[in-house]
């Protein structure tokens, strides 16, 4: 789960990481009054679950409250990578002497948390990593012992060599960041940049945090940070039913069990000259209700011209899926053709259920995908 910058900042603040003040506005007027209260020049930043917001124009400086209002008016409602901005963070503009990068991530290759820092922070950090990897410093955290003091110190002195005052501050920040990560159940966090102000203070002026979805059940306070307004409505609806849905730009609506098979099915749609309208994984044990929700979501996308079901029954029973299709289509009149492929557990019962309701079913994946792609083309 992604959380917003202002939410990540609150978590950092709770753990003692130096974070500047600031508040969230949902209207230009609110942004103006926050800027007036702060009494300084401000930066107005889009709160959106997408990277590259600075380059997209979602971050603006404002010298006066009136300018903050104007900046917020421009940013609110803006689309960044398909997501509408509904909130901005208004925070004091800082005088920046230096920008560093500090991040922590679960490194899947080694099965450890790795802390990373670079004295060359800022928006081009990935370029720094690619061109001058020697400027990215790392510490691997042994999960048996957690982050040890010498590791935080070693990283901090590499970041600010020859400047003990700053290095000691940085070691403290790094230790508190790691604590934030473990406390929030994050799989990634980042401060980019960690700035040094003119007066020599370190401040985290940006904050990113990714929460492991599997942590939410045992961290209700973190789970409440989810901002459904910042997510696509269909994705929210799918998640409530235990489905995973991602909208794409094509016209062949796909409903598949299992993420790997769902991706392979989309690839096959493309292989046969079509474009998938979505990724939709109905998961392992698929009750008829899940299938009903899946069909509702797919048919609510006006771009869909043909629907494709691809089910390989293992834990998933084909007859459950068949019952779901029949159930769902009782309520809604399908405006587009549907192609159903199923094989595996209870396949025969499924075919009988479908045929009794006037559907036909196939068992070969390639034939079904080809047919669904053709049907989508014939609809145009």
């Amino acid at each position, binding site marked *: 789960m992604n959380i917003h910058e202002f939410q990540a900042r609150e978590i950092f603040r709770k753990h003692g990481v130096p974070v500047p003040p600031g508040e969230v506005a949902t209207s230009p007027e609110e942004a103006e009054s926050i800027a007036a209260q702060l009494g300084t020049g401000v930066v107005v930043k889009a709160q959106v679950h997408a990277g590259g917001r600075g380059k997209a124009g979602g971050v603006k400086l404002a010298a006066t409250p009136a300018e903050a209002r104007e900046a917020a008016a421009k940013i609110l409602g803006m689309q960044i990578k398909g997501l509408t901005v509904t909130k901005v963070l208004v925070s004091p503009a800082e005088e920046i002497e230096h920008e560093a990068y500090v991040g922590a991530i679960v490194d899947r*290759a080694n099965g450890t948390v790795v802390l*990373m820092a670079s004295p060359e922070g800022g928006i081009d950090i990935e370029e720094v990593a690619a061109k001058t990897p020697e400027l990215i410093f790392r510490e691997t955290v042994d999960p*048996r012992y957690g982050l040890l003091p010498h590791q935080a110190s070693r990283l901090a002195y590499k970041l600010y060599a020859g400047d003990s005052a700053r290095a000691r501050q940085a070691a403290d920040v790094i230790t508190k960041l790691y604590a934030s990560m473990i406390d929030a*159940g994050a799989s990634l966090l980042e401060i980019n940049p960690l700035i040094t102000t003119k007066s020599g203070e370190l401040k985290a002026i940006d904050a*990113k945090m990714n929460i492991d979805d*599997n942590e939410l059940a045992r961290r209700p306070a973190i789970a409440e940070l989810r901002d459904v307004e910042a997510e696509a409505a269909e994705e929210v609806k799918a998640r409530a039913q235990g489905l995973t849905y991602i909208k794409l730009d094509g016209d062949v609506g796909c409903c598949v069990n*299992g993420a790997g*098979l769902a991706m392979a099915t989309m690839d096959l749609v*493309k292989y046969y000259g079509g474009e998938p309208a979505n990724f939709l994984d109905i998961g392992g044990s698929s009750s008829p209700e899940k299938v009903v929700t899946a069909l509702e979501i797919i048919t609510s996308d006006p771009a869909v011209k043909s629907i494709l079901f691809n089910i390989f029954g*293992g834990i998933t029973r084909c007859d459950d899926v068949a019952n779901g299709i029949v159930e769902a289509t009782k309520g809604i009149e399908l405006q587009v053709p549907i192609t159903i492929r199923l094989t595996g557990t209870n396949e025969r019962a499924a075919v009988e259920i479908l045929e009794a309701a006037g559907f036909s079913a196939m068992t070969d994946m390639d034939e079904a995908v080809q047919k669904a792609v053709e049907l989508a083309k014939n609809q145009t």
Partner: protein
Amino acid sequence: MAIFADSSTRVVVQGITGRDGSFHTRQMMEYGTQVVAGVTPGKGGQMFDDAVPIFDSVEGAVREEGANASVIYVPAAFAAGAICEAADSGVGLIVCISEGIPVLDMLRATRYVADRGARLIGPNCPGMISPGKAKLGIIPGQIVEEGPVGVISRSGTLTYEVVWALTRAGMGQSSCIGIGGDPVIGTNFIDCLDAFEQDSQTEAIVLIGEIGGTDEQNAARHIKQNISKPVVGFVAGQTAPPGRRMGHAGAIISGSSGTAEEKIATFKENGVEVAARPVDMPDIVGRALHG
């Protein structure tokens, strides 16, 4: 032969009385797997289906019944603990089917297992099957056939699709291993490749990957250096959207985009043939087997 498990493997099922655990225990036994014990704390002393003794802890199952492998079907909140318990009880092979385990818990559990010299498969995986010998997990028994092809995969149903295509084409399997799709897992592609390389039954290897991470790229380089048997790859997710990636840490740590294109290119650079579609797999594997 086969890898990791065969007809001599003595299985304890953790979570044997649960909904999924009981269903799949019956399926495993029907397949011929030696399920010698079950564990559900509080139900020690009872019997499962009048055939399998239940214990309060894995330790009892190992001591009384000589269990040497565990299959875990417990809810996510208890799964990392169940993995550690199995490792601590001297079980050599641990297959964790449960999904939804927090990744920070898995960092500790994988280390704990490694420190005790055990092998973990999963979590969040379909488990493994050595056709004709033993099934530890949920891979449907009717789609496999005993034969010379070793299969390794990160996904579940996509594995079934490929295995079923192989079986229909008359190419059976030595073992099929679903290593799981979570960021932190026990056994990886390279562990399985090495085991298949040593296995006398295996003549060709199928590796099914997907987008994300660098496991496929590492496997590709490993194959060129260390694996003499033919390997055929497949990578799912060529049409997956680039996404609204947050942060740079992922790209910095791996130096990789994790896209299907990059993985396919790395396979090809290292001499691994890649199937464009699952249905193409049998032909390519057939050529690899018969020259």
